[in-house]
């Protein structure tokens, strides 16, 4: 294993997929965010905290432009972060992943991880636009969300390992995981916040958010798989060379 090459491939595929994610969010998710923050502004005007003046809007527009640039930057950072996890799991599981090429193997793993650490947790604790969350519950919501992701991720690994040990079919591991996560899904407490924003806005936001995160996982699988295929970091360094 060429350590430096391996890390370089993981980090570059993460940042590339992350920048795609951030840019796609500018197109697909930002309209909902603007709409939600617009509702918040109306609340600020109504409560007298801010005044509906041209100066307010100039300041607001400048602020939002800055924040939208942060969307792309944060996409890169989050992309590297999730990509690092993906790289670790890919390196450890590459030999047992189905598929003849590295691209296929990476796509299979991206699909599994998308489902277990993103999509199933998303179904339990769906994304919310601004104005929905209660600041008082943000720590609790963070703990619930992370715990569910961790339980789901480790659960998937656990059932896979178990089926390996017992030498059963992979299907047994899948059924075991499905039953397990189904129970966790029902047992874990709900998001405590009331949704006060318009239903259309919230639904539209959730669909777009899930769409771009899914694009991220797809890009990550393709890019990491292609780079891996090209540079073959798993090949041993010839000793004493």
């Amino acid at each position, binding site marked *: 294993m060429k*350590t430096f090459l*391996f890390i370089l491939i993981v980090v570059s595929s993460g940042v590339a997929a992350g920048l795609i994610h951030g840019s796609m969010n500018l197109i697909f998710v930002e309209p909902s965010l603007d709409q939600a923050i617009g509702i918040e502004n109306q609340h600020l005007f109504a409560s007298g905290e801010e005044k509906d003046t041209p100066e307010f809007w100039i300041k607001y527009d400048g602020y939002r432009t800055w924040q939208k640039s*942060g969307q792309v930057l*944060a996409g890169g950072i*989050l992309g*590297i972060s999730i990509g*690092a996890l993906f790289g670790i799991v890919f*390196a450890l599981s590459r030999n047992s992943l189905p598929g003849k090429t590295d691209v296929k193997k990476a796509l299979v793993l991206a699909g599994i991880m998308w489902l277990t650490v993103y999509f199933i947790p998303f179904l339990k604790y769906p*994304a919310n636009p601004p104005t929905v*969350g209660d600041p008082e519950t943000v720590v609790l919501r963070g703990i619930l969300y992370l715990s569910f992701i961790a339980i789901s991720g480790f659960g998937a690994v656990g059932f896979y390992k178990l089926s390996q040990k017992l030498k059963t079919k992979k299907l047994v591991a899948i059924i075991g995981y499905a039953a397990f996560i189904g129970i966790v899904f029902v047992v874990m407490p709900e998001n405590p916040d009331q949704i006060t924003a318009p239903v259309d806005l919230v639904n539209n936001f959730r669909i777009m958010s899930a769409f771009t995160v899914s694009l991220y996982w797809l890009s990550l699988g393709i890019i990491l798989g292609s780079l891996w295929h090209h540079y073959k970091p798993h090949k041993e360094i010839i000793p004493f060379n």
Partner: protein
Amino acid sequence: MSQSRQISVSKNGIPITAIVALAIIFVAGLFVVGFDQGHIFSLVYGDEAFQDLYIHELTHDMRHAAGFPCH
């Protein structure tokens, strides 16, 4: 390059250093985008950072878009 034979590897042949480095990147990046409420800059700027929430504000849109809990 006799040193390269000294690098400890996991049983799959993946260097432990690489796994540790990537694990740190994973946790740090996730924290910055998903959960920072002024903690990181408070190391440099003190309590003021908790007021300014610079990183929170900058990564805010992605925080919502990627499904992390926020406001």
